[in-house]
């Protein structure tokens, strides 16, 4: 596959969220999906046994929650066409506020600052009650402005 952005752009024009997510093997493995609702992109990861990290409590694996948030941020940037290529994660910082129960988990992203090269994105996750935040993340992503690609080609 050469051009991920044009696939995303087409999926976006057809509101084909599943097609956009299907591009990414690891997002498929985690079962991540998303949709637009009241002007925001809502991400979800359905509960599945393989995202459990603590079978005794039981609780979701912190790494699965982190991966979910990271992929939500990447898709959020791609969907909003902030970069000519897939954004590259520079750093990712997660605060875990409460254990993830064995239920579906949701996320929403906010682009805090969008520069030429770097985007600062915050992510928030919750389960049945949006007020009860499970984890937050703050990340930087390296972007590729469209003019850079034109210069290379």
């Amino acid at each position, binding site marked *: 596959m050469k051009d991920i952005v044009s696939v995303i752009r087409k999926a976006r024009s057809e509101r084909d969220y599943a097609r956009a997510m299907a591009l990414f093997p690891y997002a498929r493995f985690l079962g991540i999906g998303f949709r637009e609702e009241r002007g925001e992109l809502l991400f979800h990861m359905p509960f599945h046994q393989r995202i459990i990290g603590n079978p005794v409590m039981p609780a979701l*694996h912190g*790494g699965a929650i982190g*991966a979910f948030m990271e*992929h939500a941020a*990447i898709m959020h940037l791609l969907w909003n066409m902030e970069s000519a290529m897939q954004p*590259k994660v520079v*750093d*990712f910082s*997660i605060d875990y506020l409460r*254990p993830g129960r064995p239920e579906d988990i949701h996320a929403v992203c906010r682009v805090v600052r969008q520069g030429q090269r770097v985007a600062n994105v915050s992510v928030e996750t919750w389960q049945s009650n949006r007020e009860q935040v499970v984890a937050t993340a703050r990340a930087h992503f390296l972007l590729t402005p469209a003019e850079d690609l034109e210069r290379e080609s």
Partner: protein
Amino acid sequence: MPAFQDMTREEQVRFFFSRLPHGVALGVELIEAGQGRILTRVPFSEFMVGNPVTGYVHGGVITALVDQTAGTAAMFASDPPETVATLDLRIDHLTVARAGQPVHAFAECYKATRHICFVRCIAYAEDRNHPIATSMGCFMKTGQLLAGGGERK
């Protein structure tokens, strides 16, 4: 199988890993276990791809491996091991993890207080001097022994 408290540390870690469905699904393996020092590895699988153009491993796979390795180093900083909850985790992605290569993670709990464990971790493909990612995390001791054998005195 011997009782948990009669196992060697490596046996205890392997037993613990075998009970983490997400780690098992990813294929996380223990290589070495010392007190507060854990070395793990995850072999490459196609489902880990995060960038369909380049085939690079998803940053979320690194996050999950680092979370599990660093958390285990925090648990095994106590003797007998005590369960912990991740408070925060920051991961710097220094370079990409290429398709076909394993990812190793080495975590070291460099300070454990009565309640908190401070852990640093590096992830690398084959050479520890060329890390893919570096990480710092804080973990809270829960007061529960890992074996489920009651409260800390």
